[in-house]
């Protein structure tokens, strides 16, 4: 099994190379003078020349690329104009916030979408089936930022159930001591249930927004996959053998149906990582998405480049994990010598 994992990891390398090249090009092949962009809107001709020297923008392109890769290898993503801090440090400190939000949203999404898809397939033509279909079509049409705002209006302004959308924790609470960076986990580790509840309260609306957004592809794929599996020869054999409904649907049908759903998760992550940026803006979430958006507005280019690169590398890593997970779960892939 380790060899399969190793083999799959190796196939990722050309993709990573492509990603690094593209992000390099994105910031060097800017229209006009890249130095001007990196110097910022308030730059004088001297500071532009300084930046050009210090970032090595006067050297030929291939040489710049080597420097770029070298910097990456040392974790150097440049410095932010606004704060003067290394971009890498900022991203690292903000990453847990985004990760917690995305994972929370994904879990809610799967908890709703998968049972919905299964029931829709098992009870074809029923109201559950139609609900599933409507949810799928609506979920694809709703702009994620609009959903977020709607939720805020209904649950915060009208009903007063949710706290104000002002970030990860209400002002009165302090963050738990950092172990993982996930407030939910860290607060439980510290035994602080007040903070846990507060962090959860802040997470619910943005998490729900992301969940609604990613419901559609998961529900749709679960339903389609389940339908195909329920019509298969081996489910027919299971039925003919008189196995209980539970065994047929869960042990025989569901496990097989989940395989394509795992593969779908890759695509879902692509949407989620993008939607994350929008949700972070709506809910003032201090993650890397809002970091990039703030930098964009300030015409601060190094953070944006660092953000795109980080997201791409995370996405590649996630896809690799999904690939490996699939290989572990499906014996046909696992045992192919």
């Amino acid at each position: 099994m380790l060899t399969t994992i190793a083999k799959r990891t190796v196939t990722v390398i050309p993709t990573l190379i492509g990603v690094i090249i593209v992000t390099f090009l994105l910031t060097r092949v800017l229209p006009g003078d890249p130095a001007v962009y990196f110097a910022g809107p308030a730059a004088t001709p001297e500071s532009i020349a300084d930046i050009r020297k210090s970032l090595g923008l006067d050297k030929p392109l291939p040489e710049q690329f080597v420097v770029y890769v070298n910097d990456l290898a040392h974790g150097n993503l440049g410095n932010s104009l606004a704060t003067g801090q290394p971009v890498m440090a900022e991203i690292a400190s903000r990453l847990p916030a985004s990760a917690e939000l995305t994972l929370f949203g994904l879990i809610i999404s799967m908890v709703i979408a998968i049972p919905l898809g299964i029931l829709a397939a098992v009870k074809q033509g029923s109201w559950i089936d139609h609900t599933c279909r409507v949810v799928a079509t609506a979920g694809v049409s709703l702009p994620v930022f609009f959903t977020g705002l709607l939720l805020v209006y209904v649950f915060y302004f009208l009903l007063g159930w949710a706290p104000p959308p002002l970030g990860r924790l209400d002002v009165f609470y302090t963050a738990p001591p950092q172990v993982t960076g996930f407030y939910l986990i860290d607060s439980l580790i510290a035994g602080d249930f007040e903070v846990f509840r507060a962090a959860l309260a802040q997470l619910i609306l943005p998490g729900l927004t992301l969940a609604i957004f990613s419901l559609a592809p998961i529900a749709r794929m679960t339903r389609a996959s389940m339908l195909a599996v329920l019509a298969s020869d081996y489910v027919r054999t299971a039925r003919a053998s008189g196995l209980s409904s539970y065994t047929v649907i869960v042990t025989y049908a569901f496990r097989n149906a989940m395989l394509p759903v795992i593969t779908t998760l890759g695509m879902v992550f692509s949407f989620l990582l993008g939607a994350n940026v929008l949700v972070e803006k709506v809910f003032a979430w201090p993650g890397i998405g809002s970091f990039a958006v703030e930098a964009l507005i300030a015409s601060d280019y190094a953070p944006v480049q660092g953000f795109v690169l980080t997201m791409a590398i995370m996405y590649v890593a996630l896809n690799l994990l999904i690939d490996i997970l699939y290989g572990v779960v499906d014996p046909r892939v696992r045992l192919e010598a």
Partner: protein
Amino acid sequence: MADIAAPVRPASGANALYRHARYVIGENPVTGLSFGLFVLILIAALIGPWIVPYNPLASDTSETLKPPSLHHLFGTDQLGRDIFSRVVVATQLDFAIAIFSVVLVFLMGGLAGVAAGYFGGWTDRVVGRIADTIMAFPLFVLAMGIVAALGNTVQNIVLATAIINFPLYARVARAEANVRREAGFVEAARLSGNREWRILAFQILPNVFPILVVQMSLTMGYAILNAAGLSFIGLGVRPPTPEWGIMVAEGAANIISGEWWIAFFPGAALMIAVFCFNLLGDGLRDIVDPRRRT
């Protein structure tokens, strides 16, 4: 032996297509609804600016933050501008962005894919590499990067949207071209001396079009969402230009204080437009290729 003088096209005559289209639209009321909605949106896009009651850019400080009423159907925003007029006028911009994105990606992706499927070999590998590299990024993030790099303009939003949809079109076009590479009418064209690229552009690409047109309708919906998302975070469209995404952004801060209409109506317009294009795509799929019905 087949008559090779007249190349046989898989699509039936225009008349039969029209009748079939009428049947499909009539059979499913939802499809009919989406076609009707599409026409409505098209009309709003074309003549919107001329029929709206207020100037979308005109601010009126005495009428700020008014909720929907008979005077202002959708209310007014922080600068006293009529939201209904702005939403209708914004149709033009969003629709234009969607159309241009889709046409651009059809040409780029369609031609590249068709070439890859037809010539194979080195062309295929290069197109494949490009597509794979694009897909290695979360798509919206890549769009952000492209617009940030190339400049904050509407044209770059169109280009970014086209680029991130490129892999899908290239793949579909490539598959179709692969199938048709050896088809009779291609052979006929080749035999009658047509050069390769003419075959590609005038024989294969038009036959790939019906398959892609379904995807194009879906992409239009996605292009609008993409552009709105980019505008929402400040990329692409600048105030005071009316565009649905940026209008939602402008109204976002007021949601907490309860002035819901500023963000709601442009957001609802977005939703309806995208919903319409998705349904349209499903309807087109039923017309073009009923076998692929889900």
